[in-house]
């Protein structure tokens, strides 16, 4: 089935509520946008993610009040290696948006969202546990799924599927 090609032009997408809100606040924080398969992705500059989420949560027109998910993708051996992915949901407008932060393998730290949504706690711990991304300001950044003394980060692409033997 032929798919409509992804739109990556910021001009065409500026009417999307999340894009409009963020570009009105700080256009430099938006590093790129993508509209593909009816899903909106915004690449956010890494230092701005917490403030961007706080703004989107309080937006009057379309409040993205619910944090659905936080996860990560490892693009090893490419740089920037990691993408931390946030899925926000607006319960009133029934709208989703995906925020992405790109991280170089040399500094895998990003601000924690636990001060905005306490529910980010477990999701961030999971990403820390399986990818080794550090969330600054997290109240209890410890391993959650793997044993406490586990070495390595299993979901990284340079970690073998069978584990180390």
């Amino acid at each position: 089935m032929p798919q409509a090609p992804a739109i990556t032009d910021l001009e065409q997408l500026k009417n999307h509520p999340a894009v409009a809100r963020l570009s009105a606040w700080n256009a430099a924080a938006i590093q790129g946008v993508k509209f593909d398969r009816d899903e909106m992705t915004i690449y956010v500059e890494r230092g701005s993610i917490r403030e961007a989420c706080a703004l989107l949560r309080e937006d009057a027109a379309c409040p993205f009040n619910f944090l659905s998910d936080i996860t990560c993708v490892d693009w090893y051996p490419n740089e920037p290696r990691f993408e931390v992915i946030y899925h926000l949901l607006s319960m009133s407008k029934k709208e989703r948006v995906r925020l992405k932060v790109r991280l170089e393998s040399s500094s895998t730290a990003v601000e924690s969202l636990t001060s905005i949504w306490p529910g980010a706690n477990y999701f961030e711990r999971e990403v820390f546990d399986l990818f080794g991304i550090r969330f600054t300001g997290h109240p209890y950044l410890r391993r959650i799924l793997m044993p406490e003394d586990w070495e390595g980060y299993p979901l990284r692409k340079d970690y073998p599927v069978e584990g180390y033997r």
Partner: protein
Amino acid sequence: MAHMTPTPVLEPGQDRTMILNMGPQHPSTHGVLRVLLEIDGETVVRLMPDIGYLHTGIEKTCEAKFYQQVVPLTDRIDYLCPMTNNLCYVLAVEKLLGLEIPPKAQWLRVLLNEMTRINSHLVWLGTHAMDIGAMTVFLYCFREREEILKMFEMVSGQRMMTSYFRVGGIALEPPLGFFDRVRDFAGYFPEKVDEYENLLTGNPIWLMRTKGVARMTAEDAIGLGATGPTLRGSGVDFDLRRDMPYSSYEKFQFKVPVSQEGDVFARYMCRVQELRESIGIVRQALDGMPEGPIKADAPHVVLPDREKMKTQMESLIYHFKIITEGFAVPAGEVYQAIESPRGEMGYYIVSDGTAKPYRVHMRAACFANLQTLATMCEGRLLADVVAAIGSIDIVLGEIDR
């Protein structure tokens, strides 16, 4: 095994408190949940769940499988609602592929999903009531659940790990007599729900154990990422089936039960009413079941019928290629969420254009819902922890993945 050592450790806050370890082999923790409790007499001061005992690295395993080989793995995440997991995964892959699914397959998926919801809620009701001390309900619930499992066996050959849905449709036509059996079940099931309610809803002991217990406000529930009946029990009217429909749910009429109190009883009422709504959807699906194919017209993705495969060269080639090489999925990413019995089940799949997913992430409803436990229980009595754990309907397989 680091889990043998008691980590994470809570330090007692004051001289008067002590640490109590609950689980992981405690019968009321529904699997292997370990809860560390700091208690002051009978009052819970702090609560910390410790999870990961069932972690099997399913997300990593998915990266080494073809797209169609991931379907059986999804059953094993949440063993109480296999069909909803199957559905969420295949919907996500179909969105990546841009596949059009025939109406009959969509309606069958809705029908089986609601049966799965009933199945899951029955297990929840039985075990939750047994945790609080009402033994009889468990036996009643498992009586009806057995019938559902037999129907699952009819369509898929398996009672629990069904793997019935395929990318592009469903595996097989349901066998003769299946719809009659479902109709029969849909006919008598509402009376059975009355039976459960007779045992519990007005029962003074049940009310004392559940009313006003483990309260959670709507703001807390949203902030902590709660979804499903755990969220709706706190008065937030949000259901993905109605608000962001998938698999033609928009063609069905149903109410979304919401309770305002935010206590164990409110969540109980939400789920019991959902049982009635679900059987209503099952009935609508039976009455309006469209005719037509059950698989999409996409030979490079959907396996051909056995008959065609044995008689037509082209089908044989497609069959061989799908089995040996999988099917390539265009590069891209999707997040597909559905309303599982426990809340928002989401699949985030990244494709790099090959026949194996680059990344599969499962947003498990219970994983987020479990975070609400501390809010519910801190400052409450120790015995209420058991009621609270039951009321958020956790499945540890889904939490740990």
